[in-house]
């Protein structure tokens, strides 16, 4: 029986690449090294609600059709639309993303990723102040102070702490967890916080206050810090600042608690400024805890192909970027989109009600291996192979390190990349005919 080593897990942004998979009769029968989330993804393939066949909604019901029919119907929607939203493309390969961008360009669509409801503000922060980071192995080998801010890796990135951060050992961190100080800043005592040397509980939405206070302390302006900031005592702020300043190498890992709470991108901007200030004293970097396994890849591919990482509007024939105006939710809430193509993400589950209500009114094409709330809104459903299991391709880890995902088993399903290519061809055919 084939045993495939060093498979890349296509679940979260940690992109663990040491998974051993045993395949028997084209079924995965054993998975080693994966965390519970990764394990569920590999086995879930055969247990969860796969979309078995392409479908088109007729008289309110999704009816099975051939791939050809579904792609034809989808292409017709795209050709007849004057304002298509293409959304998602984060749990798929860079190769598929590249084709999705080409499709958006050829149809004058607006294309956006899940960053719209996740780390989008981190991109805006980087555009304000830059993003001083490092690859995860740098943290593993060097960091003696690790801060998790507004993130909970125990549940969201279960192997992060053992492979890359708190518990990992490296050349200059031979003692692993014992030689490290671990700080968690959050609004509630998460399971990650329970493992920390220091847990700093802050009032919800007050991250920017604490970041600013820390910067004041790091830059020698203690006097401007009030007795309590963000629900944290001045004394604790000063101690935390000292810990960071006296580190040999510190890293702030930040999650949606920072990016999607009050002050949004200003929080990331503040963290970036704090990191720059800290480097006057010791080495410090920041890394965003990205969720979807290839949301980082979407940002990379979109940036080299269009100049922008997300919220790209091709209506003018060239890429135009103005998040707040050209984000996925912006065009839905304004009821501007007249059709949508949603792939490898679940807008139906994750978008605000007003956006979802508009999605229900317009033709929606879904490309996904699994049925999810978006399926309920979809007019054309195109099932796809699961990338990293049934299809190979590139993904970028949260630290922008690209890895090649392997194909582990055969499938009859088309890949996202192939579906996007088919759509491009069909759209060209329909436009040529018109």
């Amino acid at each position, binding site marked *: 029986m084939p045993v495939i080593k060093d498979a890349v897990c296509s679940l979260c942004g940690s992109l663990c690449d040491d998974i051993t998979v045993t395949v028997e009769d084209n079924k995965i029968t054993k998975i080693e090294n994966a965390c519970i989330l990764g394990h569920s993804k590999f086995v879930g393939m055969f247990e969860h609600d796969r979309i078995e066949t392409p479908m088109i909604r007729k008289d309110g019901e999704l009816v099975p059709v051939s791939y050809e029919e579904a792609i034809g119907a989808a292409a017709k929607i795209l050709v007849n639309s004057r304002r298509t939203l293409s959304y998602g493309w984060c749990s798929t390969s860079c190769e598929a993303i590249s084709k999705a961008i080409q499709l958006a360009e050829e149809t004058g669509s607006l294309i956006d990723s899940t960053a719209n409801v996740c780390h989008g503000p981190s*991109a805006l922060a980087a555009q304000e102040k830059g993003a001083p980071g*490092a*690859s995860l*192995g740098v943290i593993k080998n060097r960091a003696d102070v690790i801060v998790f801010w507004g993130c909970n890796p125990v549940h969201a990135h279960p192997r992060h702490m053992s492979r*890359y951060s708190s518990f990992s050992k490296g050349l200059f961190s031979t003692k692993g967890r014992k030689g490290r100080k671990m700080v968690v800043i959050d609004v509630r005592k998460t399971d990650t916080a329970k493992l920390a040397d220091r847990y700093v509980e802050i009032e919800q939405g007050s991250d920017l206050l604490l970041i600013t206070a820390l910067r004041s302390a790091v830059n020698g302006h203690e006097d401007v810090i009030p007795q309590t900031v963000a629900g944290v005592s001045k004394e604790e702020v000063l101690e935390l600042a000292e810990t960071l300043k006296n580190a040999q*190498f510190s890293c702030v890992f930040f999650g949606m608690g920072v990016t999607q709470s009050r002050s949004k991108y200003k929080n990331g901007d503040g963290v970036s400024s704090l990191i720059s200030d800290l480097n006057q004293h010791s080495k410090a970097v920041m890394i965003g805890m990205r969720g979807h396994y290839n949301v980082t890849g979407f940002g990379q591919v979109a*940036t*080299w192909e269009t*100049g922008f990482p997300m919220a790209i509007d091709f209506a003018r024939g060239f890429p135009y970027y103005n998040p707040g105006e050209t984000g996925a939710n912006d065009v839905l809430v304004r009821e501007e989109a007249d059709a949508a193509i949603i792939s490898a993400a679940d807008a139906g589950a994750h978008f605000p009600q007003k956006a979802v209500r508009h999605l229900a009114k317009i033709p929606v094409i879904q490309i996904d291996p699994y049925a999810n709330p978006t399926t309920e809104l979809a007019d054309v459903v195109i099932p796809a192979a699961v990338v990293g299991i049934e299809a190979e391709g590139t993904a970028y880890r949260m630290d922008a390190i690209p890895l090649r995902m392997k194909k582990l088993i055969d499938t009859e399903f088309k890949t996202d990349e192939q579906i996007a290519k088919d759509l491009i061809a069909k759209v060209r055919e329909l436009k040529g005919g018109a």
Partner: protein
Amino acid sequence: MSEILIKNANLCDPIQGINCENMDICIRDGKIVESVSENAEIIDAGGRLTMAGGFDGHTHSAGKINVGRFINPNDARRKLVPGLSGPEKRTEKTRAQVGYNTPNTYAIGYRYAKLGYTTICEAAIPMLAARHTHEEFKEIPILDKMGLSLFGSNWQVMEYIRDKEPEKLAAYVAWGLKASRGYGVKIVNAGGGEAWGWGKNVNGLYDPVPNFDVTPAEILMGLVEANEKLQLPHSVHVHCNNLGKPGNYETTIETMKMFEKVKPTVDRQSLHVTHVQFNAYAGTSWRDFETGAPMVSDYLNSANHLTFDLGQVIFGPAVTMTADGPVEYANSRLLHEKWSNQDIELEDASGVVPLSYSPKSFINAVQWAIGLELALLVEDPWKIMFTTDSPNGGSFVNYPEAFTYLMSAKKREQVISGFGQMALDRMVLPGIDRELSFYELAIMTRSMQSKMYSRPEKGNLKVGSDADIAIYDIIPGDIDPSVEHEKVKQAFSGAAYTLKDGKVVVKDGQIEATPMGRTYWVNAKVPADIDSAMQKDTDIKFKKYYTVSKSNYMVEDSYLPNPVEISTEGVF
């Protein structure tokens, strides 16, 4: 079989010693041939200036440039150079384009081709992220590509040098090139990337790297020995220590001198020093900063073992991007600019900071002058590659503007007239009246690269060479570049024709076709026993320190849609 006859070309081909002579050029199946049949398609060059396709041997065009794009979305909309920057709609033939310093991948291909360039070399591939470079290469149309892999702060490299294991070091370099599909050895601020892992830097050639007990000088000498042992087609490509610091010209000359004793095993230089403008600074601080170009040029005129490129500054916005992590942090603090950084485990560092060069700043004015002084004070153009270290000194789309600085003293005077007295006191450029000819320009932009990179089929139009050709709308005998510099700039800004492998890709400055270019990479052969001894050491590195598996480190074939493998035999 496809045949083209270019009639009445005014050929400037320094490798053949042809200096603007009218002749016909015959092409069959993408190569230059002696003659073609009567059925050949005819292009009438009409006596216009014809050169081999340009070859930019040091440009940041794939990989790190994406960080530049990411943090500077405003650059996408910049339209500073008409026809070669800013947003352009998708057409039947071309993808949508954006950008000036950091264009999207498609624009990089189209715009280089419009300048008559057909080959580029990406200046820095971080090996762990090499797939990224190749992914961008795949989306850069038309051009042939190669890239240089970073070795200068690599743990395995430093340990082998410390432990005096030159054979294993050579084997590791060979393996690293294969893993990253690189073309050559890039050394950036030797040892400085590792020091930056602790927020520190090395201060010169003999300042030991923390924890590794080697000096930058030893790293340079160790890697050049490996480079020559492997008979690599390119020499080591060095970004000197102390870049960007007043007084650094001394380190630069010292570095160049160290290589005098190196015997190259391939018929090329033993050292290439890159973007020397940033490393030819005199003075002791930014207050008494002045040009160090005369001292560096004096040395370069006396030496025959090396080549260098300019890193010419262009006034206006630029984006600095380098594996020299500490330099970028210093830039960001000095300029109060946004700062991105990306240290790569066990290998190197990097950073990206946008900036703007202003003729009103005496420092920027002197930097601008230093690049030109180097080009004009160094007598032998075969030692000089023209670059802006794009986009560090400025975007490559400004090359035509920069050519006029080299070819016209009048044009230089125009620019210099805007400088303050303090700037003028710190430079020697106003006293230089040399003006380069088309022949000398051709050497610096395509011919010297042929030898420098051991690509005999590039940078010339000999029989057998690649039919990569640029025809510019200039009749050399009818133009005085010294006076008519505006016409020269126009002509170089949009080639009348660019041919890539015998196919017309640009006509009258517009894109005609977008074939996919090649990617060159080097496979250096190493004796099996040395290779396996080296692999055992590398296995430990992956097991204990890297966060990716060794098997997932190697760039797969599928990332190189049109690969050209250059095999070399190591001398062990």
